[in-house]
């Protein structure tokens, strides 16, 4: 159960080997989260993450979960909720893909979008149904500032996040009054495995900062969390730039 200061006792992570996922799980395990399930594709990486969390006194399980295999989501995730209440479901999976490759090979682009958007839609809906039965719980969805406005350099990834972002907000609205709360997290460029080797974007942040943002958002029951907090104002400006100006600004970011 979540307590009055936002501490939670149990966590299910979808995409359990991502840097953001582990940073968030670690931060929560250091607090009061002692029952954690890491779900993902890479068993070894999941197990390695689980060991770290066990070091913080948490009881951790790893389960296979493939975002692309949407038909498996009900079967894989449903039973996890029967073992005991899950206070937070953290949707942290996502692939960046390669923009150039995606443009050349539409099927490569499809894979990115199917993972980041379609897989997130089905797994979110399964999780939301289960949380509704509990009468309480938070679904935390890792979106991106890229969701705000797609750039030439990353519109395949960006649009998948834009879709996920809108979906999560709508889902949150539909869950008002059910005891289930949806929190959309929009980090700026995060230095992580996923972005290794890339040039840092402006106002770059870290997985640990995103984890702090999540914990703070859980305490406030926030529906939208920006990391870093100030990037909200930068994106507000970006949102209103006329197209030609935006293109020039986006170009500079590379």
């Amino acid at each position, binding site marked *: *159960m979540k*307590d009055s*200061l936002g501490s939670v006792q149990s966590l299910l992570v979808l995409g359990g080997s991502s840097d953001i996922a582990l940073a968030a799980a670690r931060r929560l395990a250091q607090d009061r989260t002692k029952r954690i399930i890491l779900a993902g594709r890479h068993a070894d990486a999941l197990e390695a993450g689980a060991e770290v969390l066990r070091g913080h006194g948490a009881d951790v399980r790893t389960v296979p979960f493939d975002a692309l295999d949407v038909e498996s989501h009900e079967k894989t995730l449903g039973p996890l909720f029967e073992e005991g*209440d899950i206070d937070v479901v953290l949707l942290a999976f996502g692939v960046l893909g390669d923009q150039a490759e995606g443009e050349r090979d539409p099927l490569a682009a499809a894979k990115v979008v199917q993972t980041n958007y379609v897989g997130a839609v089905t797994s979110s809906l399964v999780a939301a149904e289960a949380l509704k039965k509990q009468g309480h719980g938070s679904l935390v969805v890792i979106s991106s500032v890229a969701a705000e406005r797609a750039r030439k350099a990353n519109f395949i990834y960006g649009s998948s996040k834009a879709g996920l972002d809108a979906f999560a907000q709508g889902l949150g609205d539909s869950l008002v009054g*059910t*005891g289930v709360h949806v929190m959309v997290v929009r980090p700026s460029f995060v230095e992580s495995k996923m972005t290794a080797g890339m040039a840092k974007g402006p106002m770059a942040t870290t997985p640990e900062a995103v984890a702090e943002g999540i914990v703070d958002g859980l305490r406030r029951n926030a529906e939208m969390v920006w990391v870093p907090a100030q990037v909200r104002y930068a994106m507000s400006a970006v949102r209103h730039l006329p197209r030609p100006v935006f293109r020039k600004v986006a170009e500079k970011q590379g």
Partner: protein
Amino acid sequence: MATDMEVTTVPQPRREQLTGWGRTAPSVAEVLRPRTRQEVAEAVAGAGARGVVARGLGRSYGDPAQNGGGRVLDLTSMDRILDVDLENGRAVVEPGVSLQQLMQAMLPFGYFVPVTPGTRYVTVGGAIACDIHGKSHHADGSFAQHVVSMDLLLADGSVRTLTPEAEPELFWATAGGMGLTGVVLQATLQMMPVETSRILVQTRRVANLDEAMEQMTATDADYRFSVASLDNLATGPALGRGWVESGNFATRDQLPPKLRATPLAFNPKPLATMPNVFPSGLLNKRTVRIMNEANFRRAPKAAHAHLATIGGFFHPLDAIHDWNRVYGAAGFLQYQFVVPFAATATLRRVVERVAVQGAPSFVTVLKRFGPASPGHLSFPTGGWTLTYDFPTGTPGLTGLLNWMDAQVLEAGGRLYLAKDSRMSAQDLAAMYPRLEAFRKVRAEVDPHGVFVSDQSRRLAL
């Protein structure tokens, strides 16, 4: 001749979002409002996999009267006073009867409730489930110590009549048992005889915490009711400054002539209702500091006697309906602990750390407790009890309270389940050595875990 036909609408269950008085950690449950024993039994029998718990007027601060995904029985409609014995001062009541109702019904006959907390708006069922206490604990103990008998509906649908003599284990597991042993269907209470409805109160300012403790230690034996209100932000030599109020019910002779005509008059009027418009953060370090200063100045420096009304002395916050709204949507929490009398160093350390950190508390109250009741999870036990109110957005609050938990635990003290909304399950187990005994009783009368609350899940009760 037409037969009397009463059209009864069976109350339909609805999914509702529930919180405690602190308006935190909401969950959604199916809420039923049974009015008869039969309806309660049906509601319990029909509870699904996520169980059921009873709810009164929702004055617990945290999550004991809510049950996410399950059923909650709002018993406030089961509010009949079934019988009174005016000669012996006993009242037989349904669980939804409020202390306010009981006072109004019994004062004209010269009887008051045996224990009153800081609000009249608690139900008898809730009073038993939390084994509540008041300013009189050092003299009169806790609420369940004045319950002569009670009928308890168990998970299997059977009803047992419990008295401390005939069924001590189940009686004292239910008193303070947070509704987890069953549903109280009725209770027989021993009321307190009073001559008047006024309290003769001595109020005296105290310059610091030590003086507050000295004052109460020296004078508690002479007063049925006693409490100290502290300025929680004062530091240095003024640490714990405030005022002590000690009182007894007035005798008829102590009333001025104009009140003697209606010595038992009881007419508390709510002044207003707090609108639901407050931004979170209205009560912060700055504003609370100002309030504390004003309150401290208002308290008389030298001991000063005056006649207070019941509402004015016991229930000042009841004057404003829904006063908890002043905390805004973010809500607040209450932190109440007790430490043994010998642990004054711990008490001082806690008061100091809170003051230095500047965590603002709207009402900070210190009191001496008498000996504990036999309740397995009953909170009051001999020692000093201190209560704080904190807005949830107070910076550094989680760390501060975790530190306080450790201090209390180390000193052999504990926290109060009726106020708690964030302690850990491990601390709870360490603070209540009779938790195992409680769990054993619960396993016997409720083997399938029918009676469940968010709090029982959170704390593995």
